[in-house]
């Protein structure tokens, strides 16, 4: 018997088996790229899983596997969850994209949700968060508070997601402080406390008194605390343990509303393949409490910006904006389209240095 046939038989048997229990429990699987205790990316996905259990109680059963390497290992873990009867599987890292598509093709009755990717199928949805909305608020606070006019930025990898964040923060820092300058260090990691701490120290030595980070550990916060008089922002999770200084605010990933909604859709049989890109408005991006270290009027402005973004009244990428090479990008009042944002691979005018290739 061929593999596909075996797979189909297994899926069918499972389909029948789970069909009998369908009214009782919906099984939801989660594939994590890091440990659930990373305090950042995976931690927040796991918090959302717990929220899902809280919401539906006995109606759902969740399973997860942590620290799953991208590539064949993730493909095996997803297949295993599908074989074990999962109805819905969330794969929570960009590198799971092709494996998710491969496994989804073998299990047409199982729904898949892939975070931050761009490949979809009839049973594969994608979802991501508009973190750049939070970056705009960070940029505003950073530009207002810097005294050296040098803002340090720890980039993870030069990919659209990260470049978008740098641009958004820069635009809004520049708006309140025309003299502001960004120094960017590429750490080439999402999570490596030692590397992140080194990057933060180098930036502080170069005169930065604000550190923005697109990496997940709290090491930059610790480095800033040691240096004193340097402010930072929590990334992925709140990092409240470093408040009120150096951590003055944060961007929080809140996946719970989305996970609950999608699980509900599977229960109701209304699930369809979609592409979701939500921001502050629907609550996928949260802004951690702005601490007292931030002057009251700056805090008020930041909160006003948050409300304006949430209501859709203000878009962080609103013209006039030029690209780094001086060419026009957005005309007065024009806002960026999602396609350009999704694949953003250029800096805004005023940023120095090149995007590494």
């Amino acid at each position, binding site marked *: 018997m*061929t*593999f*596909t046939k*075996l*797979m189909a038989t*297994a899926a069918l048997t499972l389909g029948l088996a789970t069909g009998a229990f369908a009214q009782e429990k919906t099984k939801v*699987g989660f594939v994590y790229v890091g*440990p*659930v205790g990373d305090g950042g990316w995976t931690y927040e996905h796991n918090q959302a899983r717990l929220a899902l259990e809280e919401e539906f109680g006995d109606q759902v059963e969740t*399973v*997860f*596997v*942590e*620290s*799953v*390497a*991208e*590539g*064949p*290992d993730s*493909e*095996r*873990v997803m*297949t*295993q*969850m599908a*074989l*074990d009867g999962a109805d819905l599987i969330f794969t929570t890292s*960009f*590198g799971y994209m*092709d494996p998710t598509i*491969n496994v989804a093709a073998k299990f047409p009755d199982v729904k898949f949700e892939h975070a931050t990717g*761009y490949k979809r199928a009839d049973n594969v949805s994608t979802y991501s968060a508009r973190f750049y909305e939070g970056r705009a608020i960070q940029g505003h606070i950073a530009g207002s508070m810097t005294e050296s006019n040098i803002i340090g930025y720890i980039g993870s*990898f*030069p*990919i*659209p997601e990260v470049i978008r964040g740098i641009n958004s923060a820069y635009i809004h820092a520049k708006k309140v402080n025309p003299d502001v300058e960004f120094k960017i260090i590429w750490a*080439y990691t999402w999570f490596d406390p030692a590397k992140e701490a080194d990057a933060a120290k180098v930036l502080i030595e170069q005169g930065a008194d604000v550190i923005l980070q697109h990496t997940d550990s709290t090491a930059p916060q610790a480095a800033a605390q040691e240096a004193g008089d340097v402010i930072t922002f929590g990334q992925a999770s709140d990092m409240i343990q470093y408040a009120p200084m150096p951590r003055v605010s944060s961007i929080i990933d809140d996946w719970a509303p989305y996970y609950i909604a999608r699980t509900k859709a599977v229960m109701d049989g209304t699930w369809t393949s979609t592409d979701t890109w939500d921001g502050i408005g629907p609550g996928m991006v949260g802004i951690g409490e702005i601490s007292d270290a931030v002057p009251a009027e700056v805090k008020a402005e930041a909160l006003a910006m948050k409300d304006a973004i949430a209501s859709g009244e203000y878009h962080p990428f609103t013209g006039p904006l030029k690209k780094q090479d001086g060419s026009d990008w957005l005309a007065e009042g024009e806002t960026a389209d999602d396609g350009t944002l*999704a*694949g*953003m*691979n250029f800096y805004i005018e005023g940023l120095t240095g090149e995007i*590494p*290739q």
Partner: protein
Amino acid sequence: MIRLDKRPQPSRAMALATPLLAVLATMVFGGLLFAVLGEDPVQSILTIFWQPLFGEFAFYYRPQLLVKGAPLVLIAMGLALGFRAGIWNIGAEGQYIMGAIFGAAAALAFYPLEAWWIFPLMVICGGLGGLLWAMIPGLLKVKFGTNEILVSLMLVYVAEQFLSSMSLGLLKNPEGFGFPGSRNLQQYASAHNAEIITGSGMHWGVVAAMIAVIFAYVLLTRHRLGFAIRVTGEAPRAAKFGGVNPARLILFCLGTSGLLAGLAGMFEVAGPAGQITLDFNVGYGFTAIIVAFLGRLHPVGILLAGGLMALTYIGGDIAQSQLGLPAAAIQVFQGMLLFFLLALDVLTNYRLRFGAAEVA
């Protein structure tokens, strides 16, 4: 009192029995660990060892054992040759990465041309990539007497940076919307290291691993070079007097292990992984060191050790998902296995004596 008496000859019976004893000990202590974590110990152990082999979905997991085990065996086999001669290549991970990059680059240079010679070309380039990367510590050691452990290890980090650069630059998929990662070779028929028989898990990397085991066995037991390797490891001075050229041996051992690691990377990128990405390497190069020692640096032992490691990885993931065991507990479990294997090795060379110490 328990005393250890050195055996005049290492015990063959014990050499065979200790791996089994170690697995048993791991099951007992691992079971205790899982019990402390609030899981049924028998159930946990069964999930890890039984399910992948004989469980309901074994038809899927058995082929996966080959997929997971093949790169481990291929790399470990090369490393073992060097380890036997006292030449320590710790940087197989880097050679694995370079093999994958060279192999994938060879294919992508001709994309979308479909031709029979593309895959063989990738094999050659992949092997060459690993070989060249291993030659750096090799030549430095031969010419300047540098320490190959340090140099080969440091080159892993260089290779990782190179991998980042390739995924974000030269080899980036032009149709990938600016995201990192190369084209997927699984969708490029001429370059795809597909399963030879669908559903068997048997890809060319598995075949290569088998061939490597056979070659290494013949080399070590029947060939002059294998004899030179063994003598150099056990008695370097004797080897020198016996006419072994140390420089040539160093280059041969590092070169072979680099070649095999490069091939492993190439077969992985062309098959199960499919693409060059930022996180392409998952530690096979380092795990293979463990596999080599687990297999007592013996070709057949390595084959079995590779299978056992693959089993604990696959079973471990199943246990995480089905029983909710944390990944850390699974890693401790794997660590126990290694610990007991190495610890019980003492029984091969020593005899346990109970009772009061005798006067020798």
